[in-house]
């Protein structure tokens, strides 16, 4: 590869900066641009083209992997485009710029008696990022991914073209840009329909499950009668307790059930106190967590949690507390230490989930690399092109990285991928960091990958949009 031609003006070095993934386990240096209008977005594409650089879109950077990283390329951070453009409290229809976070969204609509139809486990994410990955909530089996609640969006393509898309209009782009990991164009305005709620509270039922079979069975049974269902899985428990944990199933309150909805719908009522664990200021809680983030420590904590959770109970909890508990322990992920964490999430058909996860959990414990936190959910398939959903369940496992175990853990996760693929499972591009292009091709299918690349050729003929994730899963 001899020196070809001179590449003219090199971008100003002051724009260079290191950005990280959510788990602090990966970083990449990029030229950072923060446009605040569609015109400025297009200017960034022009700069990229002139300098032979690629562009990755970034919202809040809450993906666990390399989705919003672009080594030695341009990062276009859209958080400055954070205006709510239109809100109709009669119909629940809201139009926002892509940098609006879920936090800003729910705080805007809740006082009028509405809640976002789909939210992630953190409210720090942006709507652009949520559509880019087509996020799911604890109600995926009922409400589908967030894309099913998008009425319409406007996108700017790298060519400069402006497209308005809905299920009816430019449907092929609608179903591929949502889930398209920011590779086809930039959402510049998004119109969503909110969900009507009659109280700021949810009725939450919590109960223990003693092993994986019961765990999945209880989720399966609880889902049809509940608006939200989620399981916390103690991945450190082995033997007959393998897969034990706690199920949380929640329902909205009906109209009239909450005697004082005006009060519970207020934003102040939703948010947790600043010292949620009593005396310690919450910003430093992660320091107290670090000593427990090792194999015996987590086992101890998980066992204590499991025992504490044996008491069945039903309680009322605010929407924000139910969905975003982790956000109230700022920087909890720093408890994982300086090498950070990764998440391994697999989606499996209901028929094969139990056997598959039994195998995976057994392997991780045998190899001495148990996950410290497992979360289970119920899912249903959807129509979006790069879909991660199945008629079944998902299990998300958090792993702490230690320098000495990297290679061993890599090999283990590659084994997991093979096991999951064999069981007809799928993966999620917002989470897994080690998925190979072969694995991606297998679960998406050649037809899907071909269609995606054809669409990309149409919307981005110069291949300006690329991310580390795209190169990893769609490269070579």
């Amino acid at each position, binding site marked *: *590869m*001899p*020196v*070809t*031609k*001179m*590449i003219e003006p*090199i971008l100003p*070095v*002051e724009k*260079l*900066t*290191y950005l990280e*993934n959510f*788990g602090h*386990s*990966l970083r*990449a*240096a990029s030229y950072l641009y923060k446009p605040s209008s569609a015109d400025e977005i297009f200017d960034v594409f022009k700069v990229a083209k002139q*300098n*032979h*650089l*690629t562009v990755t879109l970034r919202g809040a950077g809450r993906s666990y*992997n*390399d989705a919003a990283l672009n*080594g*030695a*390329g341009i990062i276009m951070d859209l958080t400055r485009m954070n205006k709510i453009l239109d809100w109709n409290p009669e119909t629940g229809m809201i139009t926002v710029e892509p940098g609006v976070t879920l936090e800003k969204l729910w705080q805007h609509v809740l006082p009028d008696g509405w809640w976002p139809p789909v939210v992630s486990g953190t409210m720090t994410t942006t709507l652009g990022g949520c559509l880019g990955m087509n996020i799911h909530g604890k109600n995926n089996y009922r409400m589908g991914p967030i894309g099913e609640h998008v009425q319409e969006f406007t996108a700017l393509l790298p060519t400069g073209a402006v497209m308005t898309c809905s299920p009816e209009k430019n449907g092929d782009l609608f179903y591929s840009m949502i889930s398209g990991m920011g590779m086809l164009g930039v959402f510049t305005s998004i119109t969503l329909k909110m969900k009507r709620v009659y109280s700021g509270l949810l009725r939450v039922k919590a109960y223990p499950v003693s092993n994986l079979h019961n765990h999945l069975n209880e989720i399966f049974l609880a889902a049809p009668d509940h608006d939200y269902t989620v399981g916390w899985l103690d991945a450190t428990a082995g033997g007959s307790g393998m897969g034990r944990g706690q199920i949380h199933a929640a329902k909205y309150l009906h109209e009239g059930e909450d005697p004082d909805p005006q009060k519970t719908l207020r934003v102040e009522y939703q948010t947790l106190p600043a010292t949620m664990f009593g005396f310690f200021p919450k910003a430093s809680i992660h320091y107290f967590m670090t000593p427990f983030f090792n194999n015996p420590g987590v086992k101890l904590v998980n066992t204590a949690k499991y025992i504490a959770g044996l008491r069945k109970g039903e309680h009322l909890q605010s929407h924000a507390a139910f969905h975003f508990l982790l956000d109230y322990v700022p920087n909890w992920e720093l408890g994982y230490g300086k090498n*950070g964490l*990764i998440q391994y999430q697999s989606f499996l058909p209901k028929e094969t989930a139990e056997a598959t996860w039994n195998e995976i959990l057994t392997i991780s414990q045998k190899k001495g690399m148990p996950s410290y936190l497992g979360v289970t959910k119920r899912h249903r398939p959807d129509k979006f092109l790069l879909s991660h959903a199945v008629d079944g369940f998902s299990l998300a496992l958090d792993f702490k*990285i230690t320098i000495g175990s*990297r*290679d061993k*853990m*890599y090999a283990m*996760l590659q084994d997991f991928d093979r096991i999951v693929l064999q069981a007809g499972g799928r993966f999620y591009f917002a989470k897994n*960091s*080690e998925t190979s292009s072969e694995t991606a091709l297998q679960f998406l299918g050649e037809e899907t990958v071909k269609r995606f690349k054809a669409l990309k050729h149409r919307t981005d003929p110069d*291949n300006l949009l*690329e991310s*580390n994730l*795209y*190169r*990893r899963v*769609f*490269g*070579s």
Partner: protein
Amino acid sequence: MPSTNRNSATPLKPGKCAIIVGSAKGLGGALARKLAREGFVLGLVDRNSELLVQLCAEINAGNVGQAFPYVQDVTSYEEVPALFQKILVDLGGLDTFIYVAGILLPTTPTTYDFEKDRLMISVNALGALAWFNVVAPVFQALHSGHIVGISSVAGDRGRVGNPGYNSSKAALTTYLEALRNRLSRYGVHVLTVKPGFMDTDMLKSSPRTFWVVSPEQAAEDVYKALRQRRQTIYTLGRWGWIMFIIRHVPSVIFRRLSL
């Protein structure tokens, strides 16, 4: 299609990136093999395209590390900015920059040859400066990175044997020291390496040799010093003691020696 075929860095396969200038053979080649074994993604620069392509093929046939070849004569200073930009993009980042390229043109204590002096200064010193001047601002902006320069014990004193070579290495050593003083406040590490004698093609033109190390051993020493963030190392280490004495020999005596 993605623009390069580099291996993606992931949390479990972090694949750091390095550029090695003067890497087709000798110490540069040994460093390339060493860093590849450590999982690095490498941009290898040299003027010897045939050897370079061979080395990259050898590295890419293994299952760790990755290497891309770039042909440049380091005295084509004006090519450096664009080439650097291209390598950055191809590698997807840069953690370590190593300048190894060097020539030793033999002379005798009684001959004078401007052409040889000029060439040695151009390759050993000016070539390095052309690269440092594009690498340093990037590392400074990022508050991170390692810069390594392969200088020589020959830069510690001016001696009768080869004034041009001595001065080229003295310039390199001093420049690296200045860079270190500029950049350490930004968290950038600058390492000066002073080999004594290494068993490479260059050694063939040296008159007297002893304490010779293999380039592989020297590469191990450099890698260790990189990890320990050392400022200056000699390889072999015992050269440190010898050069300490030599640096302190008063001129009245030094003039009379045939060192």
